[in-house]
Structures are given as structure tokens and as C-alpha cells.
């Protein structure tokens, strides 16, 4: 009877680390794409890619950064692929986003979600990595494959865009409420 091949302790350690980053990968993918189902597909595919490439991961380094880079590259290649297949009907995408955002009602996160999706893809990625996921500029630059100065500039521009969208329009509403209230 053939002996079943046991997973090595290194594999087991890798597996546990990979499982622990799945929720973070979901949040990053959701922020990048704005589409929950697509985001979850991306995460699962990225996790399989990470598992398949586990020999290349150096234990003790940053699993989150390593898997984020895999997910990010997979996302970009899926986008390129889908652009070749069909042109996305942006009107439909926007309506779907608004519907999803409305369902977030109690947390009032819909406005942030919509604003995030209005950013350019590079700025959205940058602010998600640094502003939401808590990576350093250096780590974020490594994940996105760009110089650190470029990452800093993208984050700064994303922050300015979000401030304009969220504090400009919504802030104006707040001020109006405060003044009349």
C-alpha cells in the first residue's frame, strides 16, 4: 500500500499563514475591484497561485505583502483579459456599485466605496495599500512594482482626490446641517 505523502512542517506553516491573510486579501480585492463576487474569485485564485508557488516564499518574510502582490498581478491580468473580451458597460457597473453601496446603509460606507472606485486604478491601489492595509510606502512600492517616490506621490494624490470628493461634497452637507441645526 503506497504511503500517503505527508505535508511538510514548512507546508503546514505556510498553509496557516496563507489562511490568516485571506480576510485581508478579500478586503484588498474588494477595494480594488468594487465587486464582491469578482473580488472573492480573485482571492481564491490568488490563494491557489500562492500555494502552488509556496516554494518561492521565504518563511518569516511578509506573507501579506507577498500574497497582495500575487493578487494584484492576477487582478491586472484579469482586467486586461476582460477588456479584450468585452467593453465593460460603465453605466451598468456604476448602478451595481450604487446598489451595493446602498446596502451598506447602517455603516454609511457607501459614499467611501463610491469615491474609492472613482479614483484612478493606480491611486486606488496606493491608498488601499498604505491608507487601509497599513503597509509602509516601501512595502507598497514593492507590491505595486514601482519606485517608492511614485508610491508616495500616488498616495498623496489619492488622498487629495478622496478629500475633495468626501469632504467637498459630503463635508459641505455636514456644514450646512450644523449651520442650520
Amino acid at each position, binding site marked *: 500500500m503506497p504511503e500517503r505523502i505527508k505535508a511538510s512542517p514548512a507546508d503546514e506553516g505556510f498553509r496557516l499563514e496563507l*489562511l490568516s491573510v485571506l*480576510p485581508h486579501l478579500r478586503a484588498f480585492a474588494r477595494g480594488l475591484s468594487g465587486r464582491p463576487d469578482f473580488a472573492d474569485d480573485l482571492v481564491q485564485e490568488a490563494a*491557489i497561485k500562492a*500555494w502552488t508557488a509556496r516554494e518561492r516564499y521565504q518563511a518569516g518574510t511578509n506573507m501579506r505583502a507577498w500574497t497582495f502582490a500575487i493578487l494584484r498581478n492576477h487582478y491586472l491580468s484579469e482586467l486586461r483579459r476582460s477588456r479584450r473580451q468585452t467593453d465593460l458597460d460603465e453605466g451598468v457597473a456604476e448602478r451595481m456599485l450604487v446598489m451595493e453601496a446602498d446596502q451598506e446603509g447602517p455603516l454609511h460606507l457607501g459614499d*467611501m466605496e463610491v469615491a474609492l472606485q472613482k479614483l484612478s486604478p493606480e491611486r486606488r491601489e496606493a491608498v488601499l495599500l498604505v491608507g487601509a*492595509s497599513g503597509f509602509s510606502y516601501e512595502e507598497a512600492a514593492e507590491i505595486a512594482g514601482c519606485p517608492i517616490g511614485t508610491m508616495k506621490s500616488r498616495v498623496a494624490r489619492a488622498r487629495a482626490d478622496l478629500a475633495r470628493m468626501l469632504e467637498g461634497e459630503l463635508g459641505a452637507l455636514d456644514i450646512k446641517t450644523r449651520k442650520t441645526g
Partner: protein
Amino acid sequence: MPGLPPEVRRDGEPGWAGGLRKLYNSVVDEPLPDSFKDLLKKLDDPDDA
């Protein structure tokens, strides 16, 4: 911190920056959906992955 508008936090961070983290963390805190069952099974039984 006196003198700062209410939408700016004590550490100088604008209010929306906390909203961005809240949005991100709301997904991190979600339980993994059922669609992840197959993936988890593969990772639970690495020999089959």
C-alpha cells in the same frame, strides 16, 4: 486639539481616512463566505491541492 476643524482628527488625519480603514476592516471582519469552502478544503488537504 483646539483650532482644528471637527473633520480633522487629533493626529491630523482627516475623518474620511478613518472611514477608509473602517470600510476595509468591515470586509476583513466578515466571515469567509461559503464560496471559499472548496479552497479551504484544498488547503486543509494540501496533498490534493
